[in-house]
């Protein structure tokens, strides 16, 4: 949902910016379009300038001859009417204009047109200056009044409308955001967990139905590919099992054959040891790939952990642990009757791997301690040894380097074995966490923490 909010605030900013841009653009276009007209309207030929000039150059009530030329050029006629309504002076006056006006005529044309000529007037001492502009050059508003209320409300109207527009725009934006969010939310959360999300669970209705369907399809495809990959690993390891049994069996026989020379026996032991490594790898690989692709069905049951640990320890010791190693259990009183809903086979494997790790990395021997503790919320299972441990750098590599199963780069050199990966995966499918602690020459400790169900 975070990505979505971020996306929307970005869109919001973009839209706000866009609206401002539109306003500026409109103002600009307005200026470009009307620049000439405005310039003309308020230029030297404009009514106010002409009236002013003509009035200033009047000779008593007579239009100065110097004005006649500019007036003609602009297509303007002029006349001066005295208080009795008689035209006392004129310039380029069209013939249809009468030379006598009644008070009513003056009242009417002063507001509008005279024979379709837009006219402009100026009051002089005892007379009236009238300029007539070419037809269709100006439009006059003949009913040029507004009530006082109209004008006082105008600012309120403009601001209010603007505000309302903004509110409506914002509401529309929020509504569409909610709508998109509702449609895209499940998609995005599905994509966030992709491809681990459940297949085909996205609803394919609503606006983004097509996208949801594609996501479902992609999830299905990935699941099938993962399945194929896990099956492939399973198949390959299956085919390796029988031949490896033969190698292990005969190496063991040669190693114990009294007729073989000590050198040959040693070599057989090397073959045996390496074959055991392959055997462990095969077993881990299958399980890791199945857990990785979530194909391993968990067979959870309520398991008495203390008993399981004792069984594992006893089995390990019974299978023959070399004398240089010791294996001890430390089960706290509170943890003795503890039960955990888990797959005992997997937990057994995880602990077996941890013990195996300690043995494998400490050929000179070490003491291994399995510890089970609990508090109100957590179950803490620790496997620790007092062996050579890891340097900080090695530990970091171990925790941070992805295994080749989980990585796509080509660096195989820094990779560690599957053992700990498997432990981590097993812990995680049980909702727990794994922590590795170690320092050089001070042992190695892996802590698995589960929540009490």
């Amino acid at each position, binding site marked *: 949902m975070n990505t979505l909010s971020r996306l929307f605030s970005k869109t919001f900013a973009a839209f706000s910016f866009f609206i401002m841009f539109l306003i500026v653009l409109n103002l600009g276009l307005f200026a470009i379009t009307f620049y000439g007209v405005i310039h003309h309207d308020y230029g030297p030929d404009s009514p106010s300038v002409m009236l002013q000039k003509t009035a200033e150059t009047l000779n008593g009530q007579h239009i100065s001859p110097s004005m006649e030329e500019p007036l003609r050029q602009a297509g303007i006629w002029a006349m001066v009417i005295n208080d009795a309504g008689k035209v006392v002076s004129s310039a380029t006056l069209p013939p249809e204009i009468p030379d006598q006006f009644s008070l009513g005529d003056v009242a009417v044309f002063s507001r509008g047109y005279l024979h379709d000529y837009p006219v402009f007037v100026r009051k002089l001492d005892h007379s009236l200056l009238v300029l007539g502009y070419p037809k269709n050059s100006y439009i006059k508003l003949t009913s040029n009044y507004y009530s006082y209320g109209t004008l006082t409300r105008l600012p309120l109207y403009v601001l209010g409308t603007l505000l309302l527009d903004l509110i409506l725009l914002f509401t529309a934006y929020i509504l569409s955001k909610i709508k998109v969010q509702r449609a895209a939310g499940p998609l995005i959360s599905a994509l966030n967990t992709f491809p681990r999300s459940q297949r085909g669970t996205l609803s394919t209705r609503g606006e983004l139905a097509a996208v949801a369907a594609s996501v479902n399809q992609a999830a299905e495809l990935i699941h099938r590919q993962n399945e194929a990959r896990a099956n492939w690993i399973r198949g390959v390891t299956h085919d390796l099992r029988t031949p490896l049994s033969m190698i292990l*069996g005969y190496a063991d026989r040669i190693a114990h054959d009294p007729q073989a020379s000590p050198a040959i026996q040693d070599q057989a032991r090397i073959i045996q040891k390496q074959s055991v490594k392959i055997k462990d790898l095969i077993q881990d690989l299958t399980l890791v790939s199945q857990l990785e692709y979530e194909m391993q069905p968990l067979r959870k049951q309520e398991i008495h952990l203390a008993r399981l640990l004792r069984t594992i320890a006893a089995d390990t010791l019974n299978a023959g642990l070399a004398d240089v190693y010791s294996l001890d259990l430390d089960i706290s009183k509170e943890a003795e009757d503890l039960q955990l809903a888990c797959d005992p086979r997997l937990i057994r494997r995880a602990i077996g791997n941890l013990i195996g790790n300690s043995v494998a990395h400490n050929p000179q021997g070490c003491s291994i301690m399995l510890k089970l503790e609990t508090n109100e919320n957590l179950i803490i299972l620790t496997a620790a040894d007092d062996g050579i441990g890891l340097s900080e750098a090695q530990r970091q590599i171990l925790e941070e380097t992805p295994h080749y199963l989980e990585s796509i780069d080509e660096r195989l050199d820094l990779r560690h074995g599957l053992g700990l990966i498997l432990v981590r995966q097993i812990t995680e499918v049980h909702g727990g966490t794994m922590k590795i602690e170690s320092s050089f020459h001070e042992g190695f400790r892996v802590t698995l923490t589960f929540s009490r169900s």
Partner: protein
Amino acid sequence: MEHSFLHSKKILLVDDQPELLTLVREILTDDGFCHLASAGTVEQGLAVCRTQRPDLAILDVMLPDGDGFSLLKQLRQFSEMPVLFLTARDEADDKLAGLGLGADDYIVKPFLPQELLLRIHAVLRRCYKEAGEQIQLAACTVDFSRAEVYRQDQTLALTAKEHALLETLVRNEGRIVTFDALCEALWGENPFGYENSLNAHVRRVREKIEADPSHPVSLITVKGLGYKLIVR
């Protein structure tokens, strides 16, 4: 003594790979088993079971004319003999199916020879008791059929629980048996809070079988885990 009893058992191997049959045969022969039969198919396996009545069958899961599971099913119609699966499939499902059908144990390939022998011995010990079985301990002889301990010129009787305790330990001779497994053997499934009773029984058994019960040499405590019995 016990070994020769187990080694007298007849074992049937069913696997379609002759090399593997040879290997398992050699491992078993070396360990001391001398009655071995083998078969390559379900049909042959069943025929051998009918005619030779082996004491234990080791079955491969994948066979040319069917699988080990169906072989076991047919076998169960006329025999209750112990069966051990040897499978190249991984642990995930086959084992459980095998055990559900009444197999006694399973081994996943690749296996170590010692592991195979250990499992075979365990299954045989669990399923066959030696008639008039006696074992030699450091300070005494235990006769399980009579539930008696012979020590110098003394004869001491074992109670039912002491008998069960010793029997469980003998079956796992030299190996650690956890407290939990012992409690289960003595008091049945899911025993809780029997630890003190178990300790009491162990103490009484030691008084009967050890020369010095406070420094036991036969019935040894493995701290935090359980007990093990050392047979001479």
